[in-house]
């Protein structure tokens, strides 16, 4: 079982959600985070400033192992483009998953 974690731009969250629905993913968790990739500057009200942190949205999706690659591809297509800062998609193993409502574990809970 894998969890796919990606920090994407807030503007693209809805596209990521739709793309994952197409892949067959039933749920996701979204957190508002900030981070930085490539250092860059911007201009705001005639003042140039160094961007220290950029607001992003972190998406976490738990999937069976065979879906991980499809999910990565879906996120890459849906959330690609936009700013040129470096963003990455992580795929991690996890040991156990239990549905809170019913107590189902592992494959039945994904």
């Amino acid at each position: 079982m894998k969890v796919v974690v990606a920090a994407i731009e807030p503007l693209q969250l809805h596209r990521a959600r739709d793309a994952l629905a197409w892949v067959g993913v039933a749920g996701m968790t979204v957190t508002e985070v900030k981070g930085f990739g490539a250092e860059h500057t911007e201009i705001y009200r005639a003042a140039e400033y160094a961007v220290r942190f950029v607001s992003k949205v972190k998406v976490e999706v738990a999937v069976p192992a065979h879906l991980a690659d499809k999910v990565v591809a879906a996120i890459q297509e849906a959330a690609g483009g936009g700013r040129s800062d470096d963003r990455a998609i992580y795929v991690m193993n996890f040991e156990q998953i239990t549905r809170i409502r019913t107590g189902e574990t592992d494959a039945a809970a994904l």
Partner: protein
Amino acid sequence: MSFRPANKSCVLLACGLLLGLVATPLFVHPSMAEDATAAAVAKPAPPATPACAGAVAAIPESDKYAAVPAVPAVLTNCTPNSGDTAWMLTSVALVLLMTIPGLGLFYGGMVRKKNVVDTVMTSFAITALVTFLYAAVTYSLSFTPGTPFIGGLSRAFLQGILSDVTNGGIGNPNPLAPTIPETVYLCFQMTFAIITPALIAGAFAERMKFSAMLAFMTLWAIFVYAPVAHWVWGPDGFLNSANSDAMFHVLDYAGGTVVHVNSGVAGLMCALMLGRRKNTGPAHNIVLTFIGASLLWVGWFGFNAGSAVTAGVQAGMAMTVTQIATAVAALTWMFFEWLHRGKPTLLGICSGAVAGLVAITPASGFVGPAGAMAIGAAVGIVCYIMVTWVKAALGYDDALDCFGVHAAGGATGAILTGIFAINQYGGTPGLIEGNPGQVISQLIGVGIVIAYDVVVSLIILFIIKATIGLRVSDDVEQGGLDLALHEEAVQ
């Protein structure tokens, strides 16, 4: 987030629009529609004269519609006009709302989240501080007769207010506002004295020590605001248009020079002395700025219409021109930004509205609706150019555009007052009625205030820098003022 770079055609288009809009009222003057015998038509009803038992010198005919009536002898045993008093009581509340929370939110939304508590607290603390100073000494210094340059101490600690209550009379009003109790007049002027230093905070936001800010505001309120208010509004002020002995007759209805040019220039001095921030960043919550700007807009009716000090025709026209100028300025900024950068922004339209409010402030009792439209359009473009190109070119870090909006807007409005003033509304004709001399007077008034403000503000800043220091350390600035200076934070 990336913006289109400025292009010269936008500037040319703007200048063209500006000239066109400013020039239009020159050709569409209300008097053109009137008959040659219009001068004989009855004037609007004069403001109610106070019912005073004490000696009152007659208010001369030519001054009946002046912003401030000519100074009569001491008034005693007077009954106030209840309509005027009710309106002025309301104006006090409206103008106080402009600072707390209006200005606090307007600025608070524009800073980064790590500095919002400090920004908002600055407005609140200045309100408390200046109230005390005002009651103690600066009301007396501004609004009692003394010399043409500073008032006396006859009202220090508000002694003598409502002292004359014999025979059922209610007291001795300030002759500058003879139909309302002096307590109401002083509270009204106090709200002006409060918002002026609070405006300066826009220039030094995100990097000034809280203690240094309090020290600066104390000295500035006493040594800059009090004298300048006396010059323009005091009974014997040398710039007061209603003072027949004045050296220059400067039209400033509600504070274009006293409040906006004054605070804007002081802000620039602070920005220059403090230096640039290490880094900046976008507004953390523009909705707070929107709420603040809305409170400023609505509260400004107390600012301008309240400066009529009566509830009547003048107040009504002041309110009307305020609304029109603000709306036109907001639209002008919004459309100009749309052309220049591709999208209209909330911050832009709010800034435009505030610029319009600032510019109409000196003009509100003197111009008509057509003039208000011209003023709004002109300041929308002037201030946009100031905060977008001039600030970038000259490199000063006027954090929240205090100088760009308030000084530039106030000066623009003051000068345009000299152009668009209409005798029927405010008692003095402007350039469009064939009186070019008023523009000169306006320029002189603005120049004198700027010169004095620069010199004294710099002296105050140097003193504070040499004693307790002005700027926070790098560490505090980067980590955020809220936690370092106040140990409070907003999540």
